């Protein structure tokens, strides 16, 4: 047996926009052990949520993550609506789908760009982010903000999408498809991308289940699980089927995200077509009491909120479990056996978000 070497990966690393430290144990160039340490960006948001009134927490929870801001607000609003037994107007449910899917497109394109960047494929990185820029502009036009959308509210949404804006959104997304086709062609055929991603960081179906993987990390290992199949918001009326790949490697996870971009475009199209007329928010009265759990499918996977109310304006407890938190144990399963040079791309392939994870 070769002597082992311990290599620190992170907390600052070129492929990671956020900090995590992986303590890698190597035999020659092969990883044989890994221990993560996090805690660099812990902000105590769960505690902060107990100290503020439940109605003002929407803005706080959106700031758990800059990339998936809307879905955090949505999960929080759903959990409070569940405690208050409030009914959301049908139009608001469709608008929640539109905002959620715009967010998913921008997040997945961000990932595809970061992957290309990690592979040293700068032109592909720029192409991905050029397409993403158009989507972020759409978010600004519809929600009023490029990153923190602030369009979700307890009881509905804050901003409507009128007929003209709906038509422009659908037309813009349709115009992006040919650009996305070109990105898909490169990702599908480029020798460098395939060599660095196919067969790397394999997570089997059994390992994905045992370690609790969620989102594209889980679906890339052949498990057809997606919270959208539970029909929250208006997903139950839009004919949603999860996208699944079976290889379980970095490439499979990437392909799931790429295919989900197309799927999200179609979901937005259908939601805008089927969206009923009516109010966009219900009037909310009372204070939350009891316990409730809300789940949504964030771009990185299942996001779960647990809340306990005691009849006052402050929640007694708010618990948040984000997708990257669930995908860290699967990452620790993927890394042993890989080459040191593959660690950055495999780590990136779970699309990690540590601000989310640490809250």
């Amino acid at each position, binding site marked *: 047996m070769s002597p082992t070497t311990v290599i*620190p990966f992170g*907390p600052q690393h070129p492929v990671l926009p956020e900090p995590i*430290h992986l*303590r890698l144990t190597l035999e020659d160039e092969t990883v044989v052990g890994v*221990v993560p*340490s*996090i*805690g*660099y960006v*812990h902000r*105590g948001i*769960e*505690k902060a949520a107990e100290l503020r009134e439940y109605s003002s927490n929407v803005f706080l929870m959106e700031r758990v993550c800059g990339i998936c801001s809307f879905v955090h607000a949505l999960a929080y609003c759903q959990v409070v609506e569940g405690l208050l037994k409030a009914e959301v107007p049908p139009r608001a449910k469709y608008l929640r789908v539109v905002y959620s899917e715009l967010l998913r497109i921008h997040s997945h394109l961000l990932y595809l760009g970061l992957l290309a960047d990690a592979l040293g494929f700068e032109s592909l990185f720029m192409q991905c982010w050029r397409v993403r820029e158009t989507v972020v502009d759409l978010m600004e036009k519809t929600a009023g903000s490029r990153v923190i959308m602030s369009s979700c509210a307890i009881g509905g949404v804050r901003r409507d999408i009128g007929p003209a804006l709906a038509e422009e959104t659908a037309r813009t997304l349709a115009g992006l498809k040919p650009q996305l086709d070109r990105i898909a062609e490169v990702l599908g055929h480029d020798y460098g991308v395939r060599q660095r991603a196919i067969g790397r960081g394999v997570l089997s179906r059994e390992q994905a*289940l*045992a*370690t*609790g993987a969620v989102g594209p990390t889980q679906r890339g290992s052949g498990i057809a*699980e997606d919270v959208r*199949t*539970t029909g929250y918001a208006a997903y139950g009326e839009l004919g949603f089927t999860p996208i699944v790949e079976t290889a379980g490697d970095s490439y499979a996870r990437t392909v799931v995200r790429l295919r989900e971009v197309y799927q999200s475009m179609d979901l937005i199209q259908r939601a805008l077509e089927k969206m009923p007329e009516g109010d966009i928010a219900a009037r909310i009265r009372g204070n939350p009491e*009891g*316990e*409730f*759990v809300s*789940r949504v499918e964030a771009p990185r996977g*299942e996001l*779960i909120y*647990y809340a*306990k109310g005691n009849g006052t304006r402050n929640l*007694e*407890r708010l*618990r948040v*479990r984000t997708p990257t*938190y*669930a995908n*860290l*144990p*699967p990452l620790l*399963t993927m890394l042993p056996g890989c080459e040191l040079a593959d660690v950055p791309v495999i780590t990136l392939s779970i699309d990690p978000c540590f601000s989310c994870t*640490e809250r």
Partner: protein
Amino acid sequence: MLENETTIGVEALVAEAERLRQQGARLVTATGLDEGDHFDVIYHFALETKLHHLRLSVAKADTVPSISGVFPGAFLIENEMKELLGVQITGISVDYGGRLFLVEGGPERPLAKTEVSGVGGQKPGAGEPGKSNGPATMPTMTFGRRSPTPDPRREVGQ
């Protein structure tokens, strides 16, 4: 009380987790609640599209066995609950000794609403500085960050 919730005793936790694992359940997360004289710990599992919850009530001086031997992904959740709330979980596969999120000299058990009694006055996770409270799996993990020594550059700047 949540939908699909079962209340069990602490002694049945590991066996019940194993039974759920064999049924194909996925561990979603666990939530710890400070209920004054005791903790409530709720384990959330997903079985196909439905959630199932196991609730334990545990006296603050009592210990809860780790389920990281059944669900390997539980180690982060259990470390967090132990560190931020003070639930005394034993046998975690990787024990961060109260230093997953918090730093030395910072707040202890920020999510707890009352003090833990019956454990010799020591807060969980507050062992000797620089030492892990956990088993020998990570005895020397000090994370190499946030040195308690003042940064000399700050003094120059001031």
